[in-house]
Structure formats: structure tokens, C-alpha cells
């Protein structure tokens, strides 16, 4: 189906319009900008504006975004708020929370508050990187699967299903054990074990859009494969991509913490998972130093909770059935349950 390749895809293809495609394809002006929902300009169709507007007026989304922004600000400001190396060992060991050390100190005399704030940097960085990267892999695999079909779909689906079935945590442990320790390893390992879930969800969504008439029209008019995938199909699944991205970031933060807690991360960096690893290692709980152990866990939970709130908000905005609890009962939406 891609034997006929159009020589100049940009301007000529604007003739073929999809009913709800990205504003970039719909506009007669030269197509510019990424197909992100943010570029919804004047001639943008209604549903896309609805997503942004809906999220801005959704209390869940705003609470989630506020929590997230606070943590991002803390992570960025960490060197200003707590200058110096937070893991420097001092002689003020195992102090309870006080005016001087708001969250007390560890058995090695490190300030827990500084460790927690500095830990946000690595945890958020790894979580976001893993989230974006595994969503990207998922998009590529899912779109290629749905668009090309046939043998490519069979092969990609097989690989996806095998990765879904391999037990995640043991695979993480094995991979981390063989690879040289470091932040790059942690990120790589988490992407390897995390992409398959998003690929499956995105493939099923892309499949249903692939069968729509406007995609067939684009194929017939000779648009290039890449353009159809990323300009015609992808913008129409923006909300499910967003949901997948959020779920992947949650996965990345949680899995990094778990891996580091097992001592398989890079123990020299300061992150929430490593803080908990050291807390366990130094027997913080056995000696009753709960203040060493609580903050990092609560931070992970708050970030995950904030992301989950935004995810629910996206669901609510894009799926009217979920907006009111008292609405008429409907059969479970297969795509929705697949996304969970």
C-alpha cells in the first residue's frame, strides 16, 4: 500500500482532510508545529480544545498538576535550598526532627530534608525519562503494527506479548545484575521491561482508527506511511497517549524505587529509592528512626497520586460516561479497561 510515494508531502496533502485530524493537517496554511494538543489554533476542531479546556477546569487535574509542580520546583531548586553534598557524612547522627533539621538526620548524620529534596531530582528525572521513552517505543510499535498489519503486525504483537508475559520484577533484577551499575542502566532496564504494556494499548487504539475512512482516503491519495501514522492517526489518539504516558511515568518512578531499594541501582546517587535502601541498610526502623524512612516513601506516593489524579481527569474529560456517577449504566468500555 505504500508503493506510491508522494514526492512533496507537505502542502499538497492538505487537500486530504480528516474529519477530526490535527489542526496542523486541517489548516490551509503551511503545516507547522508538532501534532501536540497544545497547538490548537483558531481553526481547531472542537474536541481537542475540549481536552485542554476540560483539564484546566477539572479540579482533579489541577490538584494533581499543583502537587507535581511543587515537586518539580523543589527538584530544580534543590542546589539553592540545600547547597553542598547532601550525602556528606557528619557527626550529628540519628537526630530527631528539630528546628535545625526539619526531618532529623540519618545514622550517618545526613540531613533527611536535604536528602529528600535532592532525591527528587534523580527520581523525577528517571521517572520522566522512562515514561517518555517507553511511551515513544509503544507509539512506534503500536502505530507500525496497526498501519502495516499482516506480517509486521504478527511479529510485533508476538514480541509485545512475550515481553508482557515475562515476569517483570525478576527480569529487572536479572538485567540490573548483569549490566554495569549506573543511572543509564536503571533507565535502560526500566524501558526494556516497561514498553510492552503501552504498545499493546496503543496498538488496539491505532487499529480502530486505522479502519476509519479518512485513513483510507489518505492511503489512496498516496500519502507517505510516516505521515499517515504521525499526522493522521496519532493526533486522533492524543488522550490515550496521554493516559499511557502518565501510567508509564508512575511505573518508572515506582520501579526505580523498587530496584534501588533492592540495592540494584546506582547506590552513589541520591534518590528516593536509594534513601530507602540506605534507611533499610542502616536499620533505621529497627532503631526507631522513622523520620529517615517516612519522607521518601511519602514523596513517591504523592507524585504517583498526583499523576493518577491527572490520569483520572483525562479519563473524565474524554469519556463522558465517567463524568457523572449516576449516569445510565453502560457496558464496560473495552479500551478503557485495557488501559488499566
Amino acid at each position, binding site marked *: 500500500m505504500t508503493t506510491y510515494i508522494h514526492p512533496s508531502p507537505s502542502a499538497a496533502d492538505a487537500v486530504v482532510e480528516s474529519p477530526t485530524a490535527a489542526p496542523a493537517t486541517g489548516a490551509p496554511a503551511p503545516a507547522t508545529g508538532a501534532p501536540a494538543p497544545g497547538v490548537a489554533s483558531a481553526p481547531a476542531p472542537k474536541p481537542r480544545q475540549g481536552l485542554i479546556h476540560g483539564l484546566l477546569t477539572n479540579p482533579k487535574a489541577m490538584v494533581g498538576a499543583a502537587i507535581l509542580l511543587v515537586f518539580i520546583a523543589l527538584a530544580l531548586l534543590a542546589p539553592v535550598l540545600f547547597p553542598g553534598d547532601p550525602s556528606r557524612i557528619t557527626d550529628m547522627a540519628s537526630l530527631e526532627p528539630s528546628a535545625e533539621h526539619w526531618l532529623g538526620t540519618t545514622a550517618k548524620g545526613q540531613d533527611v530534608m536535604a536528602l529528600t529534596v535532592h532525591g527528587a531530582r534523580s527520581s523525577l528525572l528517571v521517572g520522566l525519562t522512562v515514561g517518555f521513552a517507553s511511551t515513544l517505543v509503544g507509539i512506534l510499535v503500536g502505530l507500525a503494527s496497526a498501519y502495516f498489519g499482516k506480517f509486521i503486525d504478527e511479529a510485533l504483537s508476538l514480541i509485545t506479548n512475550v515481553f508482557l508475559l515475562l515476569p517483570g*520484577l525478576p527480569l529487572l533484577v536479572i538485567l540490573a545484575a548483569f549490566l554495569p551499575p549506573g543511572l543509564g542502566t536503571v533507565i535502560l532496564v526500566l524501558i526494556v521491561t516497561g514498553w510492552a504494556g503501552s504498545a499493546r494499548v496503543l496498538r488496539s487504539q491505532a487499529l480502530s482508527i486505522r479502519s476509519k475512512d479518512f485513513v483510507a482516503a489518505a492511503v489512496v491519495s498516496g500519502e507517505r506511511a510516516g505521515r499517515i501514522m504521525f499526522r493522521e492517526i496519532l493526533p486522533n489518539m492524543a488522550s490515550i497517549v496521554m493516559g499511557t504516558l502518565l501510567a508509564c511515568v508512575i511505573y518508572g518512578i515506582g520501579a526505580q524505587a523498587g530496584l534501588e531499594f533492592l540495592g540494584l541501582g546506582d547506590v552513589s546517587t541520591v534518590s528516593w529509592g536509594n534513601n530507602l535502601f540506605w534507611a533499610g541498610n542502616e536499620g533505621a526502623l529497627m532503631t526507631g528512626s522513622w523520620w529517615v524512612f517516612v519522607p521518601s516513601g511519602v514523596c513517591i506516593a504523592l507524585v504517583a497520586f498526583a499523576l493518577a489524579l491527572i490520569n483520572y481527569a483525562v479519563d473524565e474529560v474524554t469519556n463522558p460516561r465517567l463524568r457523572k456517577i449516576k449516569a445510565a449504566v453502560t457496558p464496560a468500555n473495552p479500551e478503557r479497561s485495557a488501559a488499566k
Partner: protein
Amino acid sequence: MRFILRRLGFYLIAFWVSITLNFLLPRFMPGDPVSRMFARSAGQMQPEQIEALRKLLGVDDRPIWEQYADYLYNIVTGNMGVSITRFPTPVTEVIASQIGWTLLLGGTALVIAAVVGNLLGILAAWRRGGAIDSALPPLLVFIGSFPYFWLAMGALYLFGVILGWSPLRHAFSDGLEPAFTWEFISDAGAHLVLPALTIVLVSIGGWMLGMRNTMIATNAEDYITMAEAKGLKPGRIMFRYAARNAMLPSATAFGMSLGFVVGGALLTEVVFAYPGVGYQLLNAVQGLDYPLMQGLFLTITAAVLLANFLVDILYVRLDPRVRAS
């Protein structure tokens, strides 16, 4: 029948992938895990055992396809080499001595979580917007936001250290020998409660929400209205008419979790120092015991694949639509 054969083929491919992964990892990783391991255990190994290990981990000069054929043959015949940390016990023996504890812990937690979670889901869907339906889901989502190991450590601290209700580690007290005596069984039970409860706490939400969502769809079916019109007792409609038809996704999920029982309890076993395969896997990683690590990973994968295959067979029995297509 075709369906079953297709699935069987898929699981065989998946198993082959994990064997190949196991084969390739030590051979293509940067650095040299093998020499590290040899350095650690040099004093206590016989020359022929070193030779066998070299073959297993690929430190010989034969062409790679020959090594691969050899490796496949060894795995298929159940020869996974000798454990380094527990020298000279064969890997298969180490795994056999521990998998029972994992099955006990994971199985108990799974059954409790599935039964209680499904019941809560049925009740929540039956009284939509009622106390269970509105209070529990947000609470469970909030609990689910915490890292599992963090909750487990918190529970261990609260109930083990402060309150002293629960033993702190291991599956039974020191000095007891595993035997079918009342003393041993009650002791093992006491060690089981807290680890199992922490798993139940974090996994119950998924069961409840899944059941609730299917049940809501089932409640809208005509035969429910019909049953109500006939004047049947609500309890009978709820369980025999609605819940029974909503069970199918839960049955599938149960089978899949059955597979993850073997590998999924890794963090639990680490936090509670419970002597199962997950705890052993981490010990093997820390002790650079590569043969044991690989053997454990293959065992866990095999268990997951086997459980999924059994679910597929069961599914054909439960759902006539699969048989028809």
C-alpha cells in the same frame, strides 16, 4: 483445539526467548561477571566443575552456535549447573527447597485477596453509590500510590517492632525443624500472616474495581430485570444471576496472577526475609551466583507460562464462545 495449539506454540516461543535471553546476557554484557564469580569461589571448586561452569556461562572458545546448542540441551534435560553461594548443591535442588515457601505465601495472599476483593466488588456494584462503592475505591487508589515495599516495611515496623505482634523475619522460628507437627504449622502460620496481609492490602483494590466494573455491566442485562420481576430474593439475583456471569474476567485475572505468584512476591520476601525464590534470587544476585540466578529466572518464567496456558485451557471450558470461533 486449534486455539489451544496456537497458544501452546506462543508459550513455547516465549520460553525459548527467556532461555535465549539467559544465554546471551552473560556473553554479551560489558565487563566480565564470570571472572568476578571465579575469583570469589576459586578455592573450593574442582577443575571439572569449573569447566562445566565455563561452558554454562560461555567462557570457552567454541563457536557460539555450538555453545547455544549445548546450553539448550542442558536446560531441556534440567541441568542448570551448581550453585556458587551454596556450593556444591545443584541449582535445581536449591530451587526445589524454596519454591514451596513462595507458593505458600503467594497462594495464600492471592486466594484471600481474590475472594475478598471480588465480594467487595459485587457488593459495591449492587449498591452503586453506597458506602462501599464511594468510600473504598479512593482509599484503595491512595494506598496503591505508595511503593509496596515501603508499606511492607511500615507494617513490619508497626506490628513487628513496636507492637511485637508479628515475628520479624523468616518463615519459621530458629531451632524448629520443618515437620507436620502442630507446633511447626502454627509457627509457620504466625510468620505467614503479616507478609500475606501486606500483599492482600495492595492487590485487593484491583480485584474489587475489576469485579465492580464488569458487574455494573451485567446488572443492566435484561435477565436481571426479569429475575427481579419474578420476585426472586435479592441475594439470589446478586450471586447466582449477576455475579456468576460477571466472573469470567476475574477468572482470567486469577489465572494470570497465579503465574505471578512465583515471581511477584520478590519484594515481600525481601522485606520479610522470607525464604522463597524471590529472596533467593536477590541473594544470588548479591553473591554473584550466576547459575542460580539463571535457574531461578527460568523457573519463575516457566511457572508464569504454565499458569497462563492452564488458564487458556480453562477458558475454553468456561466460555463457549472461544470454542465456537
